[in-house]
């Protein structure tokens, strides 16, 4: 039978703040375990949490960037459950009055635009981190509470996605927006961006939703894409056999690439949400919304469109450049320094800069070739030719020197002086009469040979274009 897959995604993004959501402990990643804790984030009795303003503002900014309706009144709720990584035995989250509701993200899949609706955007706190000792037979787990209380933004979509490609595009678009507005570093290797997927199948053409399976523990976009493929095959083989798909929560095991059922006991959640009495509600007025709006930079979709219009580069190229805000900034800084060649600058960035960044596993921020250096290279290129320019680029990366100084040091400037070249060409023709004669008889390859000989004499510095012209002129004059 043919099935349609219906998917929704919950995204957790750690917000970029110095201190935690309710206390002044650091949010720094990778510190010694439990060195960034205090009575508030450890949930000791009698403490008073106070909301981090920046975390709230980041959430508001994100909700606006995802085109949400902003709640005038928001508050926080206690979500009760027992797990050793949750020191208070409840997570402070939002349930009844989220910061943002009913937003959307526009994605592009195979050249077609599609709108993914956002159900809500809300702010909550992170749990701690559990470490399971690898020694077999160990009857304990270890807990590090450094992460407990780090501000976490949750973004929940409607079940609007119908293919792996749509999910992938949504994740990338969302990540891009969060990076653009600067509310999260989105580092997946540090767990700053995590996903939970809900996946169900239904017979193609049906309007009834199938039983939904929720998958937790998706720590990378790759894992999300893998789990979708896995679940589609698992669920469709169940349905093919006439069996039911159980409505359940499963955990993704990235090592074995399988999803496993969570034990029903762990699943039997009864969160008993109720308003957090230790925090006061937040009212968001129009002025605050307007003010926050002014801090939202141009988002990727509009930047891409503007690049196409303003710099007459292709939509595809604009897509690559705006895929990373830092790269887009780099490009615009280059164009700001030299308005006459946006297309050429874009080519250099897309082909050469990106290749080097990938090879060197670095980002454009730390790239040794500054926009000014790239522009200088492009400016000097006519004097050295394309292929030497590529060598100079590599040399710039290896030495950190500018193009003009490398060109000067290695005297790479092409000989463009016609009178000087005239003499050399005359000499080359004298020394290779056979080739000159062949060319006269219409053998085109003879010219290539002659140019090659000249390049040898000039150590590759002759401008091939000018050279070709001189040869053609001389040889045709000679044959007359």
């Amino acid at each position: 039978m043919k099935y349609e897959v219906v998917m929704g995604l919950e995204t957790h993004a750690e917000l970029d703040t110095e201190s935690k959501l309710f206390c002044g402990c650091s949010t720094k990643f990778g510190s010694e375990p439990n060195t960034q804790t205090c009575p508030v984030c450890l949930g000791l009795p009698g403490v008073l949490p106070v909301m981090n303003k920046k975390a709230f503002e980041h959430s508001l900014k994100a909700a606006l960037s995802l085109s949400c309706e902003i709640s005038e009144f928001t508050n926080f709720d206690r979500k009760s459950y027992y797990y050793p990584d949750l020191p208070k035995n409840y997570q402070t989250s939002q349930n009844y009055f989220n910061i943002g509701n009913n937003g959307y993200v526009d994605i592009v899949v195979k050249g077609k635009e599609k709108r993914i609706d956002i159900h809500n955007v809300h702010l909550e706190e992170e749990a701690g981190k559990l470490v399971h000792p690898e020694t077999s037979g160990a009857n304990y787990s270890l807990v590090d509470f450094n992460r407990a209380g780090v501000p976490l933004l949750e973004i929940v979509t409607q079940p609007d996605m119908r293919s792996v490609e749509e999910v992938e595009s949504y994740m990338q678009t969302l990540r891009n927006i969060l990076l653009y507005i600067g509310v999260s570093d989105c580092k997946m290797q540090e767990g700053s961006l995590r996903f939970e997927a809900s996946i169900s199948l239904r017979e193609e053409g049906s309007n009834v939703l199938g039983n939904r399976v929720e998958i937790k523990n998706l720590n990378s976009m790759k894992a999300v894409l893998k789990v979708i493929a896995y679940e589609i095959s698992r669920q469709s083989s169940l349905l093919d056999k006439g069996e039911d798909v159980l409505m359940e929560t499963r955990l993704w095991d990235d090592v074995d690439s399988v999803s496993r059922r969570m034990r029903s006991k762990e699943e039997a959640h009864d969160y008993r949400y109720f308003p957090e009495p230790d925090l006061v509600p937040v009212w968001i007025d129009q002025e605050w919304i307007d003010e926050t709006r002014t801090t939202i930079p141009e988002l990727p979709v509009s930047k891409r469109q503007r690049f196409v219009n303003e710099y007459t580069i292709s939509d595809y190229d604009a897509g690559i450049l705006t895929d990373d805000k830092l790269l887009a900034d780099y490009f615009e800084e280059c164009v700001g320094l030299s308005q006459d060649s946006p297309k050429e600058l874009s080519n250099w960035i897309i082909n050469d800069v990106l290749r080097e960044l990938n090879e060197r596993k670095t980002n454009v921020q730390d790239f040794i070739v500054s926009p000014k250096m790239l522009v200088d290279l492009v400016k000097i290129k006519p004097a050295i030719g394309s292929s030497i320019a590529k060598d100079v680029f590599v040399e710039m990366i290896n030495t950190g020197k500018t193009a003009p100084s490398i060109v000067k040091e290695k005297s790479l400037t092409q000989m463009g002086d016609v009178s000087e070249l005239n003499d050399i060409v005359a000499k080359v023709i004298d020394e290779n009469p056979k080739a000159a004669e062949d060319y006269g008889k219409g053998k085109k390859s003879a010219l290539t040979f002659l140019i090659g000989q000249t390049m040898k004499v000039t150590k590759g510095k002759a401008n091939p274009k000018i050279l070709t012209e001189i040869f053609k002129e001389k040889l045709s004059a000679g044959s007359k």
Partner: protein
Amino acid sequence: MDISVKEIEHIADLSRITLTVDEKNTFAKQLTNILGYIEKLNELDTDEVQPMAYATFLKNVFREDKLKSSFSRQEILELSPSSANGFFKVPKVIE
């Protein structure tokens, strides 16, 4: 509103407490009485009244995003029944 023994068992489970059969029966009876008493409030018409979750009229209380020093790890870990290598040690969590 009658609270069944089954509901008492569910609440006990959520609260991580163990109850004897006698206790379950006692609590079921007592909770039924308490809720029955409170039920009187349902006679009031509250259609036009917003739910009130906060006793004060405070709103928008924030702190700036500033670091404060954390507590000493040793001091913190000493509060727990068991620790190892700077971690809190807990009974094995089954994956």
